[in-house]
């Protein structure tokens, strides 16, 4: 049985329907990439899993329990952490405080703590007392990843972690992913950058207009398959 899965997940923003019955699964120790163009529903899917958007209870199952109707804070407490799109650092908090907020109200045990996060991203240790928002975009992204890791999640949801960053910076950030996997987290990575996604993923889902249009392992999917699933067959 999958560690985390969605079944017939739907989502609405007012009258606008953003997801039409999405089924995806994430197995233990696996990294799954979700690719798709802008507006395909990737971020909505992440927000639904993380509990920012509420669903029917059975729409999301984690570790055998339905969590679709749980609020975000409870889902986080059960071990599903998110690196939100746009990084969303807290401007009133320093780098270190941003990291510490990831452990709010709980004793967490596991590989990740301030020291190991600073080992992963040494620049954050140097700038630990700066306001989080005073950092460059890439460094802010590192803080956002570190903040999610601090809770030692079993599932890490990464939403568009390369968005708006220079290629060299993206490379730096993606270098951390094998270490995160090695420390035991299963991951869902949302990406618009197909090459980057293929490089880290065990399996790939492609989304278009609120539906999953393709899934498979990176080596079995052809360039054309992905192109069609990404942009629609008519292009």
């Amino acid at each position, binding site marked *: 049985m999958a560690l985390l899965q969605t079944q017939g997940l739907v989502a609405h923003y007012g009258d606008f329907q953003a997801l039409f019955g999405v089924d995806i699964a994430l197995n233990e120790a696996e990294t799954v990439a979700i690719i798709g163009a802008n507006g395909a529903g990737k971020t909505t899917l992440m927000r639904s899993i993380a509990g*920012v958007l509420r669903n029917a209870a059975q729409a999301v199952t984690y570790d055998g329990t339905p969590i679709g109707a749980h609020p975000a*804070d409870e889902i986080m407490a059960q071990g599903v952490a998110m690196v939100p799109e746009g990084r969303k650092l807290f*401007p009133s908090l320093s780098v270190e405080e941003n990291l*510490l*907020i*990831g452990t*709010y*109200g709980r004793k967490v045990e596991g590989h990740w703590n301030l020291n190991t996060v600073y080992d992963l991203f040494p620049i954050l240790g140097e700038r630990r007392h700066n306001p989080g928002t005073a950092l460059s975009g890439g460094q802010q992204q590192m803080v956002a990843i570190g903040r999610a890791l601090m809770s030692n999640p079993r599932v890490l949801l990464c939403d568009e972690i390369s968005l708006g960053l220079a290629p060299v910076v993206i490379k730096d950030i993606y270098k951390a992913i094998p270490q995160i996997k090695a420390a035991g987290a299963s991951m869902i990575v949302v990406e618009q950058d197909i090459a980057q996604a293929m490089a880290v993923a065990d399996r790939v889902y492609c989304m278009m207009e609120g539906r999953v249009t393709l899934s498979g392992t990176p080596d079995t999917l052809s360039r054309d398959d992905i192109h069609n699933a990404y942009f629609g067959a008519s292009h």
Partner: protein
Amino acid sequence: MIWVDTLLQGILLGGLYALFASGLSLVFGIMRLVNLAHGDLIVMAAYLILVLVTLLGLSPFVAVLTAMPVMFGIGWGLQKFLLNRTLEDDILPPLLVTFGLSIALQNALLEGFSADSQRLPTNALTTASVDVGPIALGVMPLLTFASAVLVIVGLNQLFYRTELGRAFRATSDDATTASLMGIKPANIFATATGIALVIVTIAALYLGLRANFDPNIGPARLIYAFEAVIIGGLGSLWGTLLGGIIIGVAQTVGAAINPEWQILAGHVAFLIVLLVRPRGLFPRAND
């Protein structure tokens, strides 16, 4: 010399207003909520202390310690079950609900305690004064001011040195992202209002020890508190203390010129600051 005396009395009076204002400032800083029942909650706390003093024969200073957890619970419940439901983008619900609460609370107190004015029992200590050179300063006003400074130092420690303070600031920045970090914004808000009402209880102690109170004086306390918060700059606690001092000094100076001008002078000082510095003396950068 009389002017130095007036000035000092005014500064000390500012401590009382800062105590009125700190809770308002805290709640506004965290959830952008203005509680129009704030003044009536101060008066309610004063009656609670009075009841504890009369029924249990406690000293007011002991009674206030007993009242604090009660008021914390009331604030927590008020926020969790009533005010959290008004925190949307629309400004009408929080205003109208807290205004309704203000009127309901005032009249509940009238029903329970009548319109007669009350006072907490004073003793030799509370009526004593100390001589500083040629000027005599009351022990009560000094205690009030010291308490205001302590409350503000304490709140700053809480905000910048504790895990709860981090959660306060994070939730204030972005409640949705905070919930992704395992924080329950509804509980953070409830805790903040609980703490605000603990400060309200301290303010109520000095309100009741220094002067008479009755169920109708809440709105005026709300107005002084509000003026202090605006003068200081929204969300700045030290600014709030300075705002309280400005109102206090304006009132004592006004009263020294003509006793009927006391309250008016405070309001005029507020309007002048609003005219020259609409965002207050220490505005927060991201508001």
